[in-house]
């Protein structure tokens, strides 16, 4: 394991399209957690989506255009913090593949190197220490596939939960199994995806936890949608929002 990075003065924040439209509070919470540690956060306003939806669906040209639009907004050499394992993996590991043989490859590589997922940034770079002000609660944790297998940051996310004294983390039986989201997979193969998310919901229920936490809004949208549909009384929430609420309770 390499040395932990130095705490920077400024960082960029990439808010992701799902946070922008569906989970803005979670996006803001992640940003505030960084600010609260004394780092200046810059949010380039023209940012939109990392391009993963098209990249995974057979439309690489469209993905490249959207990706390049993002890359050109993050010009200074600051770390780029991304509150999603999946979008971070797209920008860190898949951009160089998407632009292989492209004239912009060098620009892309410079960008990709600076991508860091929020949990890892809070733990390794900021060495965040938190005080839990919330009531005792049992939670469970869902690992997103790309956070787990491409970014390898799950232990950072879980270590954040474990810092909270009044939070009991009960692990899922099949924590390493996909929730069935997969972007357009959920649309193209609705029944297989539906079977996968139903199993995930059942797994969450058997833990007895009252809340399911995750670090990716795609998984959250999928799992919470299925929980709502099945009227399961487990609430799901992005890790950043959960942490912010518990450490800055009103």
């Amino acid at each position, binding site marked *: 394991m390499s040395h932990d990075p130095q705490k920077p003065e400024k960082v960029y924040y990439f*808010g992701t399209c799902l946070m*922008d*439209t*569906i*989970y*803005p*509070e979670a*996006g*803001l919470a992640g*940003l505030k957690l960084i600010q609260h540690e004394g780092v*200046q*956060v*810059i949010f*380039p*306003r023209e940012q*939109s989506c990392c*391009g993963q*939806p*098209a*990249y*995974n*669906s*057979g*439309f*690489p*040209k*469209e993905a490249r*255009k*959207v990706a390049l*639009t993002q890359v050109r907004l993050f010009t200074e050499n600051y770390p780029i913090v991304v509150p999603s394992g999946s979008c971070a993996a797209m920008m860190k590991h898949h951009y160089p*593949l998407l632009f292989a043989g492209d004239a912009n490859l060098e620009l892309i590589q410079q960008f990709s190197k600076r991508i860091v997922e929020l949990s890892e940034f809070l733990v390794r770079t900021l060495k965040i220490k938190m005080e839990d002000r919330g009531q005792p609660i049992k939670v469970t944790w869902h690992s997103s*596939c790309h956070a787990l*297998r*491409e970014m390898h940051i799950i232990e950072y996310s879980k270590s954040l939960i474990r810092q909270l004294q009044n939070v009991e983390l009960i692990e899922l039986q099949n924590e*390493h*199994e*996909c929730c*069935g*989201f*997969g*972007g*357009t*997979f*959920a*649309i*193209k*193969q*609705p*029944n*297989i995806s*539906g*079977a*996968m*998310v139903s*199993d995930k919901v059942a797994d969450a229920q058997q833990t007895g936890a009252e809340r399911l936490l995750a670090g990716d809004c795609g998984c959250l949208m*999928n799992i919470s*949608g*299925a929980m*709502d*549909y099945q009227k399961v009384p487990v609430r799901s929430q992005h890790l950043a929002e959960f942490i912010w609420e518990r450490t800055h309770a009103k």
Partner: protein
Amino acid sequence: MPNDTGPNFQQNASRALNDKQLRKNFKFAMGNFILKRKQIFSDESKTEQLRQIGNDIKRRALSQLPQLLEQLEEKCTQNGIQVHWAETLSEANQHVLRIMQTHRATRLVKGKSMVSEEMGLNDFLQKKGIEARETDLGEFIIQLNNEKPSHIIVPAIHKNKKQIAQIFHEKLSDTPYTEDVEELNAIARETLRKKFFDAQVGLSGVNFAVAETGTLCLIENEGNGRMSTTVPPVHIAVMGLEKVVEKLADVPPLLRLLTGSATGQLITTYVNMITSPRKDGERDGPREVHLIILDNGRSKILSDPQLRQTLQCIRCGTCLNHCPVYTRIGGHAYGFVYPGPIGKILNPQIEGLKKAGELATASSLCEACAEVCPVKIPIPQLLRRLRNESYASDSFSTVKDSGYKKNLIETIAWKSWEMMNTHPLINTIGQKIMSRLGAQIPKIGPLKQWTRHRTAPKFASKSLHQLIDEEGIQDE
């Protein structure tokens, strides 16, 4: 077999999803395989080193495949093994038939071979009046029940003990119903023993063919492979042309990777290294050994530098075991010989996208397969490539039916997506409309599919952009 437009994957998958017994059988069996693999590959860094070695060996072999195949032919011929080339499935079947006819043989015993499944050999021979009897226990069970394999290494894994007991009772004469595993094994052994002695020709697959020495490696746990390749006077081995490796020294690491990944074993009970027919003075072994080397689209796959990684596969089946889709629908739902993640990349390339391209959409790209593949095939990346190929035919495409899925609706949808996400003003307006509409957005198209199992996503009344503006966060 699939028809021209291919099997109806969604329908098959939905049927499998509703089969509670099937799902239970797969969940249980796959869970066990995952555990066994984990136990044998407990040292992560050593496993990673070994996987890299496996990847290197297979890439090295593929990079010089034509030469290695020529060398293999030369060495085999020197050793007394007769080599036959088959560009198509039909040619491969004809080779088998001709050898059978030369010996006036009507009875064949078979060790497990996925290439023979690819050839549809059993049906082909049956039409010619030749009985092809499967001797691998799993294959034996499903052949009795007129089924195809549901897994590439454990073909009857979709059946539980009770179902097998019922098949034996119904399909084998004078067989009382028993659920005792020892008894079931004994019934199979006794039935098969007679077939081994009775057969005039034995057929097997090949796990690795060594160019350096002309050696055919065949690994198995039941001894049926050894029986099939030594008891009958003639042995026919069939292999896909990607099975050749350069040196004998390449075999141990690949063997270790194969057995560890497949069944969590250090080594299989039987490792057969076949280098020649029976020599003068030897007391056993077949008098003739034939090797049929099949192409069936593989050399075309080889010609594409990215897709050729498909041919690194050593058929361990661990990608199936770890796949959340395969675990839920089983092997038959795929509708092709090779199921699971490897099938999703292999079948569309062999059969064409029109017939099998749908398979490439049946993945959440969760990376579970890539994480465990013993030769590090980047399956999700190859799935993305096949998805690209499905829509666009303008690249230097090598895949059959490239662009078959191109359609106006999706083209417009993704162009609009691109426009939204490259023009901030359009994006802002779009979002405002969506958050106003909220629950009134009609459940048609993608949202209809989404809401089959979930409630619709709720657009926030204020976007993150708005919240951040209100907080006064710095822009540049």
